[in-house]
């Protein structure tokens, strides 16, 4: 029996009728109908669309291995890679002095003991039942590597193989491979026999033409002259991926064919067939000279009669998902831009007919290709990083790149967020593909983007550049110079572009070619070069050099990589780098180690001295008021719809009987909420405990679908029920509507911008400037097919500095989402304005989640695996998230989980129930806190004045307390409808300003004072 506080204790359970709220328990349910609405009466001011940004999580979690990572400092097991559902690679740390390390432990026992240890991570029940050992191999270091096959109820799961790696003590050191966890029972008793399956396969083969009988000689040469069928569990990747009992039929009807069929063992349907003999296509190697005249072994790929500059030999390569040669997955591809640019820009494959690469153009490709492979191996071998994105994503290099501006020869190389581009040089450089450190530098920009995502500006940008130089130099470690293989000495007299050892690089001041500062006292403070990102990188570059000289280059690189991957954040400054490096050194070598000491000395030497790092994840003060929960009752036997409940109490108070179309939106002080009523008008309702829950119609057009009130209650954002890409914002002070047009500011592979059809759920951020919303998008991919999805965006709706509507710029929470994934119903944490929770639906797997994201660090994790849209809400101290859950049979209830310290994940196995037959829980607190200074950074002192009023509540007269130097030349009092109910124009400086409000009815009022651009506001309650 669930511990549930019933909202309606007196209602008969026989009365199972629910409030007829519009169903929004799936993203499908959030879709709008084809309805036209008339908004002309709003007289809204149109705000033209203007692309730009707020903040954005740099990398989608769906591209990021952090998603399923376990606590780095808590568990010896670290997930390095996941396939989206399960860990695909786990590394385990072991204390070699541990008493449980027993040399010579039986590898079978040790293997299954390790699987048991990993069971919570792997989500498997019983390793020894689910997996059987296929083979065991030992290596020269007495390590053991065991290959296991997964079984389900005794039936082998096709393609589900895992590897367990043990050390010489029999301890599990690593796990990798692919396995499945069936979501539901699979019937393993076939409905058809094996001969029927074979016949199905044969019939299919005969459809493509007559099959000649094999000669006896031919039969001796091939394996499956007679077809063979074996039962297996097959992962069918149809529209919906599912596990199916199938026959695997192998049959060689001709000497050059070995057909593999998977036949559904219940329906007899052919699930897949393929010829598994590859005639010529596949990875090849060859030798060719690079730009420096050095013979390199390069990996190419043969498709038909052509050899492509495509490396499919690395462990990241995914043959199943690759379409070659154009769309490799996990490949290293080098292509030619052939000096095209602008609208005529074109990319062509590097291809030969004989795998001989001996032209000058080939040499560029060989250099770029070989160097990309070296860079891949460097990160994989030294930092366990699987490619640029950490997930085995393809690496693409483009050679013969011209100046994107004018098509002139490009004296540069760059990373554009997707690929590496190499110019051929002109004045300062030779073809830049010739530099291994150039490749390393550009690839590291991609790594930075996928880890700390350091902003490319100021000190964070200089750290970004420095990391690129540091790891570029690590890949080309014969000196400390950058670009020495590609610069022209006439342009760079030192023979290098930059030097970590001597950032001055032969110069004496900034004007000298190649000069960089090597100490903070030489730091460039101008605005050029995005605040000196290529200039000031010399300072951390030199710190790294000094550190490497003290503790070895490899150790220093390990520490800096860990700092980049685990400590630095988007806005990190030099001092944060120092602290991050010291922390990382402590993690790797111990807090009292020489490596920690030397890190401090290296940064001291360049003037980045000890101090407090920046806190870019500042929290707001906690609301001092009592905490409550609003929940919407769906039990129609009770006429009341919205209830207010103190947390930790069963006492509930009905607030209204009005039906809602959306969850209510409450001001930060909990004084009132707004919502869209069943008649599609916008209502407000007093939610302050102890006050009459008066309800008003704020906007009486019957067109609305969703509404959100700003935290300060001064503005609301709303969307209509029509399929129009517009968000309306109403300013209660100016009594004016603004109309914002939605658009998509970014793009993903093969998908251009555009496509935002309409918004739905809305919420204001704590700055009062941005509205976070979810939007329904319909776009066409390159194949011309419609793709529909929901995503989360931010729009600049209000400009506090100008006290006017914002410019409508939009940015996205995630730049791209994988196929079938939608996210929506976003909400901000109560204390941490950089934390969001939201719903996610993976339509391909029919899975629902409540997720949490940290905008500053780029981390996203799972808060709860749900079965419906949750409409999450944080509690007052961000220790809980409440949401809607599916009770079954079309009923819903509310519950919560406790959050971990990072506020984006939970360790609760199940939700704690709150209220039955309810949905849309919204936490709020009834108290005031100062959030402006903590969040905006925009609200400047010169434009705002602090205003307080007393007594509060008041009966007839209110005293406004003004700053001593402020003369209010206008005072206005507004009611909750935004109507001006009192105005006085006067000039009074300082002290208390009394205003008589005898004639006003009881209720909440907002008082504004103004002098020119300076404004102040406070809220007061008049007693009846």
């Amino acid at each position: 029996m669930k511990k549930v506080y019933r909202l309606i204790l007196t209602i008969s359970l026989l009365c199972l009728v629910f409030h007829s709220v519009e169903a929004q328990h799936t993203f499908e349910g959030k879709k709008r109908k084809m309805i036209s609405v008339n908004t002309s009466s709003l007289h809204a001011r149109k705000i033209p669309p203007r692309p730009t940004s707020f903040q954005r999580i740099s990398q989608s979690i769906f591209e990021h291995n952090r998603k399923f990572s376990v606590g780095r400092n808590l568990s010896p097991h670290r997930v390095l890679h996941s396939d989206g559902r399960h860990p695909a690679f786990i590394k385990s740390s072991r204390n070699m002095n541990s008493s449980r390390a027993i040399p010579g432990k039986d590898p079978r026992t040790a293997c299954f003991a390790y699987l048991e240890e990993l069971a919570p991570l792997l989500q498997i029940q019983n390793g020894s039942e689910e997996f059987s050992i296929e083979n065991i191999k030992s290596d020269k270091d007495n390590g053991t590597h065991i290959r296991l096959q997964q079984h389900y109820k005794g039936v082998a799961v096709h393609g589900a193989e895992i590897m367990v790696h043990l050390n010489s003590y029999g301890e599990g050191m690593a796990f990798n491979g692919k396995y499945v966890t069936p979501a539901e029972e699979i019937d393993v008793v076939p409905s058809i026999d094996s001969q029927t399956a074979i016949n199905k396969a044969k019939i299919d083969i005969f459809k493509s033409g007559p099959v000649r009988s094999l000669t006896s000689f031919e039969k001796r040469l091939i394996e499956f002259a007679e077809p063979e069928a074996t039962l297996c569990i097959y992962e069918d990747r149809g529209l919906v991926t599912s596990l199916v009992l199938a026959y695997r039929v192998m049959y060689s009807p001709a000497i050059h064919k070995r057909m593999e069929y998977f036949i559904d063992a219940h329906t007899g349907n052919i699930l897949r067939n393929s010829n598994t003999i590859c005639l010529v296509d596949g990875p090849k190697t060859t030798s060719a000279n690079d730009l420096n005249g050095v013979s390199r072994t390069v990996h190419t790929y043969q498709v038909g009669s052509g050899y492509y500059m495509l490396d499919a030999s690395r462990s990241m390569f995914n043959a199943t998902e690759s379409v070659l040669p154009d769309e490799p997955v996990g490949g290293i591809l080098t292509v030619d831009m052939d000096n095209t640019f602008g609208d005529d820009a074109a990319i062509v494959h590097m291809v030969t007919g004989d795998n001989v690469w001996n032209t000058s153009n080939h040499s560029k490709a060989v250099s770029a290709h070989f160097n990309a492979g070296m860079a891949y191996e460097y990160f994989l071998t030294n930092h366990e990083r699987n490619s640029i994105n950490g997930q085995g994503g393809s690496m693409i290099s483009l050679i013969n790149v011209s100046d994107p501006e004018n098509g002139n020869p490009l004296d540069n190389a760059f990373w554009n967020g997707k690929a590496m581009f190499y110019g051929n040089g002109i004045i300062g450089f030779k073809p830049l593909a010739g530099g291994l450190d150039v490749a390393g530098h550009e690839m590291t920009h991609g790594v930075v983007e996928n880890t700390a995502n350091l902003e490319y500006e100021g000190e964070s940008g200089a750290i970004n550049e420095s990391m690129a130089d540091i790891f570029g130099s690590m890949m080309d470690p014969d000196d400390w110079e950058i670009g020495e293989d590609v610069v022209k000495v006439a342009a760079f007299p030192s023979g290098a572009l930059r030097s970590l050892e001597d950032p001055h690089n032969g110069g004496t001041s900034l004007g000298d070619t190649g000069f960089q500062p090597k100490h903070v006292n030489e730091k460039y403070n101008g605005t050029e070069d995005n605040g000196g990102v290529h200039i000031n990188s010399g300072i951390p570059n030199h710190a790294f050099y000094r550190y490497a000289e003290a503790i070895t280059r490899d150790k220093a690189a390990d520490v800096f990589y860990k700092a980049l991957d685990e400590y630095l954040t988007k806005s990190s400054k030099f001092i944060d780098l120092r602290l991050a490096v010291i922390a990382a050194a402590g993690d790797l070598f111990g807090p009292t180690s020489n490596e920690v000491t030397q890190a401090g000395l290296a940064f001291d030497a360049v003037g980045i001295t000890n101090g407090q790092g920046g806190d870019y994840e500042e929290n707001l003060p906690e609301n001092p008021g009592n905490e409550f929960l609003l929940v919407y009752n769906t039990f129609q036997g009770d006429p009341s719809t919205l209830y207010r409940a103190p947390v930790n109490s069963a006492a509930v108070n009905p607030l209204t009987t009005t039906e809602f179309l959306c969850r209510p939106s409450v001001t930060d002080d909990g004084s009132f909420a707004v919502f869209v009523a069943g008649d599609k008008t916008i209502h407000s309702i007093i939610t302050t405990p102890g006050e009459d829950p008066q309800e008003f119609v704020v906007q009486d057009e019957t067109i609305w679908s969703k509404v959100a009130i700003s935290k300060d209650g001064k503005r609301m954002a709303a969307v209509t029920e029509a399929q129009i890409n517009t968000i309306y914002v109403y300013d209660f002070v100016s009594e004016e509507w603004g109309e914002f047009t939605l658009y998509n500011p970014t793009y993903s592979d093969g998908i251009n911008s555009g496509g935002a059809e309409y918004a739905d759920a809305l919420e204001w951020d704590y700055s009062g400037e941005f509205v976070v919303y979810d939007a329904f998008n319909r776009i066409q991919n390159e194949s011309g097919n419609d793709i529909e999805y929901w995503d989360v965006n931010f729009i600049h709706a209000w400009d506090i500095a100008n006290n006017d509507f914002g410019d409508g710029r939009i940015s996205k929470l995630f730049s791209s989402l994988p196929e079938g994934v939608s996210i929506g119903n976003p909400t901000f944490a109560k204390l941490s304005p950089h934390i969001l929770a939201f719903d996610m639906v993976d339509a391909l797997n029919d899975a629902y989640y409540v997720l949490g994201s940290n905008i500053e660090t780029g981390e996203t994790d799972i808060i709860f695996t749900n079965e419906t849209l949750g409409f999450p809400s944080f509690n007052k101290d961000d220790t809980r998230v409440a949401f809607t859950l599916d009770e079954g049979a079309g009923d819903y209830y509310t519950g919560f989980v406790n959050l971990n310290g990072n506020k984006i994940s939970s360790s609760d196995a199940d939700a704690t129930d709150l209220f039955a037959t309810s949905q849309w829980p919204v936490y709020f607190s009834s108290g005031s806190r100062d959030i402006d200074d903590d969040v905006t950074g925009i609200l400047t002192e010169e434009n705002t004045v602090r205003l307080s009023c007393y007594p509060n509540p008041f009966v007839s007269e209110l005293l406004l307390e003004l700053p001593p130097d402020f003369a209010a030349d206008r005072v206005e009092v507004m009611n909750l409808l935004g109507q001006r109910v009192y105005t006085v124009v006067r000039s009074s400086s300082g002290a208390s300003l009394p205003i008589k409000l005898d004639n006003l009815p009881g209720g909440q009022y907002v008082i504004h004072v103004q002098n020119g651009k300076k404004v102040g506001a406070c809220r007061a309650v008049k007693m009846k």
Partner: protein
Amino acid sequence: MKGVYFFALAVLICDCSSLAQDKFISVGSGGGFAGTSTVYKVTSKGEVFKGNGVGDIEFTLCGKIDRAKAKEIITKVSDQARAASPFSHPGNLYYFIASTENGNEQTITWGDVDHPVAEEVKKVYDEVQASVNTVEFKPIK
């Protein structure tokens, strides 16, 4: 070749006084492995200055464009900069336009693929680049 000769004659080292006193606009690009940027400044008198390098680069007067065209460019850049500034999202390769008047500069910087700038800004950028690229080889009259 003749054009290059005339251009060489026309190069004057700028003491920056005309830039300091005038309303002018700047457009440029830079970044990448090299980190250098190439910047053009256009004054309301039609003077075009060019600078290339890293950091506080030195500008040289490299030619003139028609005053009416200069004013048109300045108006367009100023309008875009005023409407869109502050917008600072440089990528590894970045582009910018800036409007400077009485020492106050409004700049729009882009290049981060995740934060694309408005097409109108790009159009103005291209228009200015087209104008200054044609002026390099013209003599100053």
